[in-house]
């Protein structure tokens, strides 16, 4: 079974981001970039499927500038067999990424596509679902467990108030939640092996997709500063405030 994993280059989660002075975007100058944590979980899951003998090949795909090859290499160092970069300098939005990934899906015909449920930069949480619609594939989102069973995949989803398990016919799409697995770090021999793995570069035109933006980013601003709290004299005052001011208990 062939597994396609999407990986995105985002600001490292340890970085405290700042908005540009003109409010046009987040300032990415000299900022450490990394593989999106949810995508890392997706790679880990695919590699585990391969180690378990379920998957035969794991392909890591990323959409973006040349620099995103770094994240594809990381995915290959974690165990993906080969990589695909869809090269575009345009700031790509979920629908465009989904269309480009659809192009890759048509080319590669994977049985399973694993994506992060969202990326920590845009927090859109759309690409996996859009790809499901475009490729006409079943989808199991927010997965906390993935079990391939013959021509089906059982996906346990983290939903409000509990867990839901759905059974999907393959080929299918899975988006990962935080608790699906704990990603490994790449071992040195695997980092060196990744250097020699195949990485193909396609243009959007190669995949028959036109990159047109449908969204305009109006403004980026930092969240409001937290206001100072108040000290309460005793538990009674606290309960009173929670009831009557914050109105969080009744």
């Amino acid at each position: 079974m062939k597994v396609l994993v999407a990986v995105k280059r985002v600001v490292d989660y340890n970085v405290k981001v700042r908005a540009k002075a003109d409010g046009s975007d987040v300032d990415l100058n000299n900022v450490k970039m990394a593989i999106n944590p949810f995508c890392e979980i997706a790679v880990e899951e695919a590699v585990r499927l391969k180690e378990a003998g379920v998957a035969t090949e794991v392909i890591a795909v990323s959409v973006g500038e040349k620099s995103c090859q770094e994240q594809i290499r990381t995915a290959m160092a974690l165990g993906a067999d080969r990589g695909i970069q869809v090269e575009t300098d345009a700031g790509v939005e979920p629908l465009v990424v989904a269309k480009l990934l659809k192009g890759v899906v048509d080319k590669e015909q994977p049985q399973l596509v694993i994506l992060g449920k969202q990326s920590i930069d845009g927090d859109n949480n759309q690409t996996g679902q859009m790809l499901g619609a475009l490729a006409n594939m079943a989808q199991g989102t927010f997965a906390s467990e993935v079990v391939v069973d013959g021509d089906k995949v059982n996906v346990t989803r983290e939903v409000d108030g509990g867990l839901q398990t759905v059974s999907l016919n393959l080929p299918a799409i899975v988006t990962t939640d935080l608790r699906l697995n704990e990603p490994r770090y790449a071992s040195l021999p695997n980092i060196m092996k990744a250097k020699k793995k195949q990485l193909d570069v396609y243009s959007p035109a190669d995949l028959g997709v036109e990159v047109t933006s449908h969204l305009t980013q109006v403004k980026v601003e930092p969240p409001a500063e937290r206001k100072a709290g108040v000290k309460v004299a005793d538990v009674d005052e606290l309960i009173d405030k929670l009831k009557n001011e914050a109105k969080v208990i009744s």
Partner: protein
Amino acid sequence: MDFQLSDEHKMIAETAYKLGESFGLEYWREMDAKKSFPKEIWQAICDAGLSGAALPEEYGGSDLGMFEMALIVENLSASGGGSTLGQLFMINPIFGGVTISKFGTDAMKRDMLPKLISGEMNTCMALTESNAGSNTLEIRSFAAQDGDGWLLNGEKIWITAVSDAQKMLVIARTKKIDEVTRRTDGLSMFMIDVDRKGLTHHSIDKLGTRTLSSETVFFEDVRIEPDELVGTLHGGWKELLDTLNTERIVTTAGLVGAGQLAIRLAVAYANEREVFGKTPIGAYQGLQFPLAQTHAEIECARLMNYKAAAQFDAGQPYSSEANAAKLIAAQAASMATERSMQTMGGMGYATESHVERLWRDARLFRFAPVSEEMILNFIAVHDLGMPRSY
């Protein structure tokens, strides 16, 4: 000149940092309190293939160089280990690994290198004696010819991690110092078992680097077998220099990481801590400037160490660079840990803040593995062409 790290270098650094982070500062605090060899993290380092970074591929290594080794040590140190992390890389990949891969017999390579790389075996190196520290050539331990092998007598001091090692690289005289015309003549290297008749060792209680024991070692008629000679009989000194000089690069990398870690802890504390009103103490220049100063020095030491490592890897002379980097790194790491503690005040004195361990550990490297004074002597004589004072 290209200061960019390759994708592989970034990944190597990332792996080392993440691995260190997964153990964290509390792990080291506990090991330090127990004076226990950090075997869990060492095993994880070996499992990730990091111990074999610069060792030959055919024995399980990655055939990379000292530059990659420096990157690895620096990141493991910065993510929690501190300066003592460099010593872990000295005892196994350098004392054992570099020495055997360069000068060992094929049998030694086949037997020892895979075990060193996998973490199955630890080594230590017995060189220093109570009357031969900086003056290494004065060592008195003597291996007398005994049939086809040798009989070793003498004593060593400040030998790191003997209790946790299975093999010991011993440097001994095979010709008495008064029988040679050049003092560099008549030294030999042997790789012997730590557990051997006539070999005893005792731990020295000390200020820092407590996860690795420092020991005195006594040899009383210790038999050395013929196949335990490493390199050239009587010609060990020249060969030993490769081991000693690479040790310097690894030490510096540990110090650079420790400085970075101490500064990070200090900044995190200073930016939160408020004493008078609502201004965090981090806003006071009295606290800022010393941290900024040491940060600048750490960055310079890092660059100089990369240069030394890159030159070693390219087969070019690198002693001047390695020495300068080690001098500055040791002073800067000392200052960084000192100022970090000063920034935290009483909390910096408590073990729970971790900086006191970093402070104790970093102190060692002002005089080990080579003292500041000996480095300054070297720079004055070799780099500046001034007369030798001793």
